[in-house]
């Protein structure tokens, strides 16, 4: 059992290494892609900051606080784009009929699907996320924010968890491809839409949306809740602040649901072949 997990992990590493080596064949392209993506995402961040030129706060949130939230979302989403590229690309795999090959090998199909692409250019967004985080700290310099090991832990757990939830959304979207390859927009609403919305404090949205991002697509657990914990802000619905440490559990639960749905999709593929 453990041996299999280790073998799968090392195989994952090798498959990703293959993708990286393939992309290194086009170094200049890659460099330009990373830089372009950095600039595009930095522009998004700049737009967000511009909002605070006429308005000093957003429902009591200072520009630096929103910047931190946005930076955390950006890093988490960037990681998801990096590691979930193959899953995001699944509609192409299905359309070209390449999924058959994954079923012809003795290792898990998802392992092969998730490594059929590794979008190194997405490093642009992750870099931007870290820059934005630095900018946020600079904007918050007057706040005397006290960093404790627990706060750093909550933030790191949150980022990894939000990445896992984003990847799980991509996986759910990929699963839809077993039925139709026309509805990929549905996932984009959740990924890009979720990223965009969660870059702002959750409380500016109506209660239905707040509950959705907390209890249905629990992205807020990886972003909003840990950031509130770091900033010492109260959570909506009177939720306790130690929830910030529960984010990995919530993310794993969501991933598990996505995985079950995926397996169901694979079985459907095996009975329809399309």
């Amino acid at each position, binding site marked *: 059992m453990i041996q299999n997990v280790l073998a799968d992990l*090392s195989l994952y590493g090798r498959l990703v290494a293959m993708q990286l080596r393939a992309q290194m064949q086009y170094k200049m392209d890659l460099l330009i892609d990373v830089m372009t993506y950095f600039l595009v995402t930095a522009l998004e961040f700049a737009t967000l900051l511009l909002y605070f030129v006429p308005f000093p706060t957003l429902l009591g949130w200072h520009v630096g606080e929103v910047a931190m939230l946005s930076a955390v979302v950006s890093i988490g989403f960037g990681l998801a784009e990096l590691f979930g590229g193959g899953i995001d690309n699944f509609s192409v795999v299905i359309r070209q009929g390449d999924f058959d090959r994954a079923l012809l090998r*003795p290792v898990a199909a998802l392992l092969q699907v998730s490594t059929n692409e590794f979008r190194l250019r997405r490093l642009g967004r992750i870099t931007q996320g870290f820059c934005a985080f630095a900018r946020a700290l600079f904007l918050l310099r007057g706040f005397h924010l006290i960093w404790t090991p627990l706060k750093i832990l909550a933030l790191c757990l949150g980022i990894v968890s939000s990445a896992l939830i984003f990847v799980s959304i991509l996986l759910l979207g990929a699963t839809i491809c077993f039925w139709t390859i026309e509805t990929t927009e549905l996932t984009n609403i959740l990924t890009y839409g979720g990223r965009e919305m969660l870059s702002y404090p959750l409380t500016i949205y109506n209660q239905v949306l707040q509950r959705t991002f907390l209890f249905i697509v629990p992205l807020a657990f990886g972003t909003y809740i840990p950031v509130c914990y770091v900033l010492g802000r109260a959570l909506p619905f009177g939720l306790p602040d130690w929830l910030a440490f529960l984010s990995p559990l919530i993310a794993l639960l969501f991933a598990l649901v996505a995985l079950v749905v995926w397996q169901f999709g694979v079985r459907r593929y095996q009975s*329809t072949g399309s």
Partner: protein
Amino acid sequence: MAMIEATGLSKTFRVTKRRSGVFGGLRSIVDPEVRLVEAVQALSLQVEPGEIVGLVGPNGAGKSTTIKMLTGILVPSAGEVRVAGFNPLHQRRAMSAHIGVVFGQRTQLWWDLPLIDSLRLLRYLYRVPEERHTANLARMRALLDLDEFIDTPVRQLSLGQRMRGDLAAALLHDPQLLYLDEPTIGLDVVAKARIREFLLRINAEQGMTILITTHDMDDVEALCSRLLIIDHGRKLYDGGLSEIRDRFGGERTLIAILDPAEINALPRNATGEPCLMNLPEGVRQIRFDSPRVWLSFGKEALPAHELVAWLGARHRLKDVTFQEPEIEDVIRRIYEEDLLLQEVGVV
């Protein structure tokens, strides 16, 4: 124990028609328009270890569906399958370590990387012990002459080289059974011959069982001891190659271009088509589309050059070409024969 044993294999697809419009995609999920298509119907087949069996049939005959069911990609609607002792349905991953699959039109190699990288990685994808992998890789390099292009990125390989790479990739984990789907499609004559020679060799030396689908009758003649013809998802023929050639495949077609001036002078048949008169025995005119005439003749009835000489002596020939029998022709002839039998039955 048979390598492949399938009884009553059937596959019915529910084909949903896509709806158009903005929410068409969504509506297709919720409320699909369904039509049933029987891709494979009650197909039974048995392949013994060491056999090379050709699976032939026209496009859409159900070849791919059959292969997909035998490899565990598709779950049959009905029927029993065992491949190399495994049930592809419940033991797909265990079984996949014992079979090799090559799709002629799709590669399993990593496009942007040198061939050797893919071949090395496959060891981990199939969990092959290092020693065995090293030995197999060395043997494949020698047998398929991979060394001249093993460090070239796959995208730069010629189709023939890529196919050799794909064959190696499919065999590195020591499969007992090799599925080949159109392995020679698009290859030139030399490359085709090379692939065939290699397949015969691994069959003879290792006793590799091979199931091959192809459109190329030359592939079948060179490789297969047994032939399975399917059409419309049903088995039309299962038996030796020589029998089918004797019965259906021996006919070739000659297409002659005549001098237009001469055509007007030719006698006409009942349908008003010009006719060549007093054709040698075993030769029949099957079509006339001025200035071309199609003649069908048996290989044994008359050597091709004699027919050309016969025609040249009596008519002013502008050009002559030959058509080898295609698998479609063979199948058409089987149908004709069937019809013939039915007609006899009625009388």
